[in-house]
C-alpha cells in the first residue's frame, strides 16, 4: 500500500466514502455513488499522472 499509486487509491477511497455518505441517504445509492466517485478519482489521478509524465519537475 505504501506506493504512490497505493496511497492515491487509499486517499480516493476515504474521500469517496465520506462524500457518498454525505450526499446520498440510502445505502444502495451511497454504494453506487461512492463507486462512481472512486473510479473517477482513480482514473483522473492516473490520467493526470500520465499527462504530467513528459514534464518532470
Amino acid at each position, binding site marked *: 500500500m*505504501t506506493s504512490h499509486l497505493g*496511497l492515491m487509491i*487509499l*486517499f480516493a477511497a*476515504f474521500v469517496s*466514502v*465520506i462524500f457518498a*455518505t*454525505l450526499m446520498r441517504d440510502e*445505502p444502495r445509492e451511497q454504494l453506487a455513488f461512492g463507486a462512481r466517485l472512486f473510479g473517477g478519482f482513480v482514473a483522473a489521478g492516473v490520467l493526470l499522472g500520465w499527462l504530467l509524465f513528459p514534464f518532470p519537475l
Partner: protein
Amino acid sequence: MRATAADRVQTTTNTYLICAVAWLVPGAGHLWLGRTQKCLVFLIALPLMFATGLWLEGRLFPFQLSEPLVALAAIADLGIGLPYFIAKAMNAGAGRVVAWTYEYGNAFVIVAGLLNMLVVLDAFDVAQGRK
C-alpha cells in the same frame, strides 16, 4: 416519508450545540440527529484517515500567522476535533520532511479535517430541517 427525530427542526441553541459536538467527535452530530448509519461511517473513516496521515509522517501545522498557508493548514488540521487534541497530547504529528510520504501524510491529515468541517455543515443543515 417517515418522521424521525432528525426530521424535526432543532432550536437555535441545540443546532449550535449539535455543530460543536459534530466537530469534536466526527459523526456525533449525526448520531444526535438520529442518522446512525452516517454517524458510524464518519466515526470510523475520518479518524482513520487522520491517523493514516500521521502514520505517513504528516505534520500538525502550528498556528503561525506570519505564514498564512501554514496557518490555514493548522485550521484545517483542527477541523477533525478531538483526534487532533489526542494526537497533540501524544506528541504525534511532528512530521518528517525528508520522508517520501510527508506530503501524502499532510494531504490525509488536512483533508480529514476539511471533510469533518463538511460533516459539521451537513449536521447543521439536517438540524435546520433542510435535509
